């Protein structure tokens, strides 16, 4: 059974003046258990809107999203999310941030601490427990955000261009870190990006979005072996996938530009 089932989900935004913009055409999509799916598309294509609908932070104009067969009604802990902006709570320390969801569900203190320690180590932030988010670099903050989402043990991890605000070197390191965690924990991940390299490197399936109004134009399986190392980015298989996706995205970016 698929973990997440997106069924004819569309979204129309309406301004106060009654102007209607179709952000998403009806989208049908399935995410299997242990999938790492990237949604690739030009900016403004509605890919983040789709992710937000799955998260329950936005609502679909039509259609529905099922998680393990149950319809999604609103946001919840079983769908963890990592945002592009830095969303750590600035008044909490790194450790308290990671424990936020655990505390919310009333987990005993000792268990909270144990889990937080485990995921702190996973993202390489041992020694920064008592720092405040502002004292950390952007990459470290996003690592904390990933640990915070994972500590909650969600059924699916939703990532909205989580490395989009980072510099290139940091982004590449973060991709490897996240992929390493995924290879070890086998989480189901839905990952939105506009970066073609990132989309291929991370995923076992890439869904290409069209320009606005968004719909899924193509799906592409990525059969590169795991564990993946950054050197894979120069392999012929990778280059081939990249060439195909570049062509797809180029057409869509040009279409978006004409609007």
């Amino acid at each position: 059974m698929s973990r997440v089932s997106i069924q004819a989900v569309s979204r129309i935004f309406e301004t106060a003046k009654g102007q209607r913009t179709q952000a998403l055409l009806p989208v049908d999509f399935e995410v299997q258990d242990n999938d790492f799916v990237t949604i690739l598309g030009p900016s403004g294509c509605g890919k983040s809107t789709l992710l937000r609908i799955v998260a329950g932070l936005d609502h679909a104009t039509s259609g529905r999203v099922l998680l393990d067969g149950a319809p999604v009604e609103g946001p919840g802990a079983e769908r963890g999310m990592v945002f592009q902006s830095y969303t750590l709570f600035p008044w909490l320390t790194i450790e308290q941030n990671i424990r936020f969801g655990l505390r919310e569900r009333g987990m005993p203190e000792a268990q909270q601490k144990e889990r937080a320690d485990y995921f702190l180590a996973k993202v390489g932030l041992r020694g920064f427990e008592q720092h405040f988010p502002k004292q950390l670099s952007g990459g470290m903050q996003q690592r904390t955000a990933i640990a915070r989402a994972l500590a909650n043990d969600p059924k699916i991890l939703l990532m909205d261009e989580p490395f989009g605000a980072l510099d290139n070197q940091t982004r590449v390191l973060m991709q490897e870190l996240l992929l390493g965690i995924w290879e070890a924990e086998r989480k189901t991940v839905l990952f939105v990006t506009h970066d073609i390299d990132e989309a291929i490197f991370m995923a076992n399936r890439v869904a290409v979005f069209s320009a606005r109004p968004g719909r899924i134009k193509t799906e592409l399986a990525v059969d590169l072996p795991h564990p993946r190392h950054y050197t894979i980015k120069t392999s012929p298989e990778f280059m081939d996938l990249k060439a195909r996706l570049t062509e797809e995205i180029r057409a869509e970016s040009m279409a978006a530009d004409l609007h």
Partner: protein
Amino acid sequence: MSAVQPLSVTAPKAPVRRRSLAPLEPVSARARWLLGFGFFVLFVLVWAFFTLGGYVSPTFLASPVTMAKEGWLLFAEYGFHKDIGMTVWRVFGGFILAAVIAVPLGIAMGAYKGIEAFFEPFISFCRYLPASAFIPLLILWAGIGEAQKILVIFIGSVFQITLMVAVTVGGARRDLVEAAYTLGAGHKGIVTRVLIPGAAPDIAETLRLVLGWAWTYVIVAELIGSSSGIGHMITDSQSLLNTGQIIFGIIVIGLIGLVSDFAFKALNHRLFAWSFVR
């Protein structure tokens, strides 16, 4: 004539630019202190020049020396410390009463738009009512006792605090709220674990600001129908044409205000260290 005038062949001599005169250039802590203190000194010097030099009649303006002597007399002979105590008590009484009501109400308004829609128009209206204009009415209702003084402070503070807290809480970062929802927080959790802690430093700043205003109300309240307090001393001195005492009273108010402001600031820095980390 050629279209474009060539720049002069010899480059103009680069002007000497003193870095210390550059805009936005910070000054050292020591220079800051000296400059700030310097103006006080200059002010007193000018004051002394006009009064001691005989350019202004002592009836209208006492000299700094007379003022200091009168100030000493106030403490030594007239128990001025009791007046100060009364005024401080009134300010804090009225202010704390206002804060106890206004902070929770402001949080509720900021968090829940229905509550905001219910109270906001009325409170916005009340905010513009001058607290001092209520004094005659309050004297009718509450007499000239403590209740009247405290109510003036209360009326002057409560609406301001409520609205400013509501704006602060309502301006919470939406992305933090969304992140909390995806971490499993419920509506109550959003209020208690995101909106309130996020707004707390700004709420404290609001309180600090309004406390400063409360000081101005209390003196007005004490000018009318009062038998104690700094404001009362000032009206008494006015009828005796004792400008030295009036000025001394004003300076004491300023000093107390300054001290309470510093204390408040220090407390905020301690309580909300996270919002001051760089």
